């Protein structure tokens, strides 16, 4: 469904080219959850931006549903590291923003918006502005907006990076349930290996900048997964260790 074909991306800074992504090849199947893991600042976000059609690859192409992505890809919902809530809108109006853009009437916006807000545990905060919320609550609002939007594919860029461990688990659980419900395809970028193994069907390990594919591992843990306890199973541990073995090399090189 998503095909990354020999994709490279270079940025030019003061005349010098900086390679963010080099020679990347992979595919994502429909309703698959793929996690991309690697050292921070390695060009993972650049990859998501290219799938979203916000950047054009320097070489190669991104193919989505059989068509080469050349403009903004409106089939995806994109949750960036920044929550990108509109600061002048209340939580309700932010979450329902995609519905408003689609020209859906106020009554239905409120109904569906409040429903999603309850799902992400923000009920009681519908009338608040983003500046009145904590970082975790803003993340949840952004997640709610993406879920309500109901895009075919969700691109998640370190969606829960700033959350504390307990909240992160709660969000993982919520996300897995809602994504299964909406039958969404997910590309998740993270630097948290635990998160990657817990959520994904396949995990890709990226090298340091420029991002290249170092390892691909299929996580054949059964679904639905119990995010609280899955990490204590032996199968989880084997996957974790194998990925960590490869990932460690990237961090070691960085340290030298």
């Amino acid at each position, binding site marked *: 469904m998503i095909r990354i074909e020999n994709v490279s991306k270079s940025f030019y800074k003061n005349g010098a080219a900086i390679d963010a992504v080099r020679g990347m090849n992979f595919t994502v199947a429909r309703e698959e959850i793929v996690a991309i893991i690697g050292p921070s600042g390695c060009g993972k976000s650049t990859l998501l931006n290219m799938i*979203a059609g*916000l950047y054009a690859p320097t070489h190669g192409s991104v193919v989505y549903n059989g068509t080469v992505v050349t403009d*903004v*890809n*409106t089939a*995806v*919902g*994109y949750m*960036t590291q*920044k929550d*990108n809530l*509109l*600061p*002048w*809108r209340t939580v309700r109006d932010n979450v329902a*923003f*995609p519905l*408003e*853009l*689609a020209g859906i009437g106020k009554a239905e916006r409120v109904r569906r918006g409040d429903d999603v807000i309850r799902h992400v545990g923000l009920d009681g905060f519908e009338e608040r*502005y*983003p*500046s*009145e919320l904590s970082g975790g609550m803003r993340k949840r609002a952004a997640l709610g907006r993406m879920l309500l*939007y109901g895009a075919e594919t969700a691109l998640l860029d370190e969606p829960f990076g700033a959350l504390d461990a307990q909240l992160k688990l709660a969000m993982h659980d919520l996300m897995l349930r809602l994504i299964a419900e909406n039958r969404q395809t997910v590309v998740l970028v993270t630097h948290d290996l635990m998160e990657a193994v817990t959520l994904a069907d396949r995990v890709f390990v990226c090298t340091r900048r420029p991002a290249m594919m170092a390892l691909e591992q299929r996580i054949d843990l059964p679904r639905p997964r119990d995010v609280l306890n899955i990490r204590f199973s032996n199968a989880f541990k084997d996957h974790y260790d194998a990925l960590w073995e490869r990932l460690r090399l990237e961090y070691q090189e960085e340290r030298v």
Partner: protein
Amino acid sequence: MSGPAGSTQLAKDVAPARPTPPSRHAVPMPVWQLLLGIGLLLAWQAASGRLIDNFFISNPIDVSVRLYRWIADGSIFRHIGATVYATAMGFVIGSAGGAVLGVWLGVSPTASRLLNPYLNALNALPKVALAPLFVLWFGLGIESKIALAAVLVLFLVFLNTYAGVREVDQDLIDGARLMRATRTQIVTKVIIPSAMSWVFAGLKIAMPYALIGAVLGEMIAANRGLGYLVQFSGAQFDTAGVFAVLIVIALLAVTLNYLVELAQGRIERWRIISR
């Protein structure tokens, strides 16, 4: 120049910005501000006729009497009305034009590049120099004052709006595009609300200039308005009259600024909360 008028404005500006320290001073700041004002008035009264010729600085009593007489016979209200009308109309027309121009050029790089040198030249031009042209075009009536006020306001609001539109977070725009926002929706639902605080900064700066434009227009050629009255009083060597008009203008300016701030507070509730 305008002693008491100036101190009134200063007090209004400073008071909300500086929270009064509790218990440290038994006497609250507004009392000190009032005392200072009274002190200045007394000093003015004392200096007049003794240190400095009454002809040049008049004195608070004469000024008060003059103000009272104008208010009692109602003649001042005709002038205030004319000036307020010209200021308000100029402000509205100028800010609407400036905001539209700012948004348009802000979202259209081609147009802004094309018009750039001309806008720079127009902006550098002292707009006051256009006054004779406006008198020729719009006559001696209130229209030429409105035009002068509007053109002063227009550039200030335009520059701020333009800067605000260029400052909009590209990530917010990209986010909206991914959610299938049309170009119009991006402008109305992302760019304009985001630039709103810049627009308001422009409006706040521009408000006094609307008054300047109106008063200046009245000083050049008019038969009513506060600008006309201050010019007329000066020509009659009526210092008390000049001071009286200055006080009225200063009070008017403070009121107008207050109204803009009030409007901003109502519209930008989210920003006030985040402070």
